[in-house]
């Protein structure tokens, strides 16, 4: 039997094992995910706890909505998305169905088209406990930030007015991919998604980023919407930058390891550039 045949015959593995391997393992190091899940949970639970308003049609009652111009928005994954005051520059723009409610007011700002605030019932002030979990409160109304799905979750860095997106968050598929699959495959084959250890030859320190804020599209040079990092670049490879990172891996030896390296970011045509 050749290797290819062996690979093919692995289809006969116990179906139960295959199904279990499809389950997402618990993430080991991303604290903010708990905040995101908590926010989404709060929005999803609204129709359950507040029966005075009817939820919209099934399938349209989640933490997302589509504006009349076709743009789709999904609730922000960050705790600072909840605000008791309407952020400056946002104005009433009509009503929509969002977060399980019909006809809730929403607010837009022409200078920040990637955000929409919806005034709706929430179950937290956006404050986190020491584990990064949202502290629940009594249900109350607040302004909740929704983000255009084209950039929601995108880890971006602005270098000289051009946007780079992390290979972790770029989408090379779907009806409106961020980059082509060919481009993605080429970068992945050449650099991978994350590099452990030292940067490859030719890459040198470019500068340290400043944080532009969650869910933002960084407008200024050397700004990131994900945090403060060291950036490395190679003039011979203008389509790629490397952004410092570290991650924790836990082994069965219990001690675990802190790994240091770089996330690979690629140039892309940001729709809000």
């Amino acid at each position, binding site marked *: 039997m050749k290797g290819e045949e062996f690979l093919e015959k692995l289809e006969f593995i*116990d179906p139960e094992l295959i199904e279990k391997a499809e389950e997402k393992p618990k993430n080991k190091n991303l604290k903010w995910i708990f905040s995101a899940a908590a926010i989404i949970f709060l929005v999803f639970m609204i129709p359950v706890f507040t029966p005075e308003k009817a939820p919209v049609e099934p399938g349209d009652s989640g933490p997302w909505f589509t504006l009349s111009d076709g743009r789709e928005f999904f609730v922000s994954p960050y705790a600072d998305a909840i605000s008791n005051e309407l952020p400056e520059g946002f104005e009433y723009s009509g009503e929509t169905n969002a977060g399980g409610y019909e006809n809730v007011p929403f607010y837009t700002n022409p200078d920040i088209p990637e955000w929409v605030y919806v005034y709706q019932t929430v179950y937290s002030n956006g404050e986190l406990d020491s584990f990064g979990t949202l502290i629940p409160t009594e249900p109350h109304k607040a302004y909740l930030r929704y983000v255009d799905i084209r950039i929601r979750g995108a880890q971006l860095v602005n270098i000289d007015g051009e946007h780079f997106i992390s290979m972790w968050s770029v989408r090379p598929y779907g009806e409106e991919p961020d980059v082509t699959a060919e481009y993605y495959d080429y970068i992945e084959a050449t650099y991978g998604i994350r590099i452990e250890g030292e940067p490859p030859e030719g890459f040198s320190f470019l500068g340290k980023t400043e944080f532009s804020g969650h869910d933002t599209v960084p407008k200024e040079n050397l700004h990131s919407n994900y945090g403060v990092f060291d950036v490395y670049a190679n003039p011979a490879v203008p389509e790629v930058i490397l952004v410092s990172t570290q*991650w924790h891996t836990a082994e069965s030896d219990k001690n675990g390891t802190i790994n240091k390296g770089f996330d690979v970011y690629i140039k892309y045509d940001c729709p809000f550039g």
Partner: protein
Amino acid sequence: MEDFEIVELFFKRNEDAIKKTSEKFGKRLFSVAFGITKNFETAEECENDTYLEAWNRIPPHEPKSYLYAFLARITRNLSLNRCREKETLKRKAFICELSAEMEECIPSPDDMNCRIDDIAFGEAISAFLRNLEKEKRNIFIRRYWFLDSVSEISKRFSLSESNVKTTLFRLRKNLREYLEKEGFEI
């Protein structure tokens, strides 16, 4: 709708079976196909061909308790075949890479004759996998059943790529030893 009810629709030759299958499993099947082909259109074709293939296979097959795994197996096969057929998918090299890794597991790689049947082979590999820690087992399955890249696996399990490669290397070695010990001639 429960799986057994969908299978009953197939048995009744009711075309709603396709619709219900697509509604319940479509996204997951597409995901399997896309993971292998890395091509949106081809993945869609594989997903659609899976429904046709399921229509042809049920009956006589009656996968009432493992419908998803039955469908995913078809999708995997179709996707692998597409990768072999279409040079442009650039996935052929990846399949070759995986095949080469698999040869490390084969006790007698020069022997072209398969001396055990598919079911016995599946049971042997499943028994090996069941004895592994959950994470190692899933890393193996993600790599060689879902054909995930090393970087995808490292992201999924929050492990470094070198850690994933080392784990896979050890698993292949262990599988080979297991097959030899159990007396399998492949």
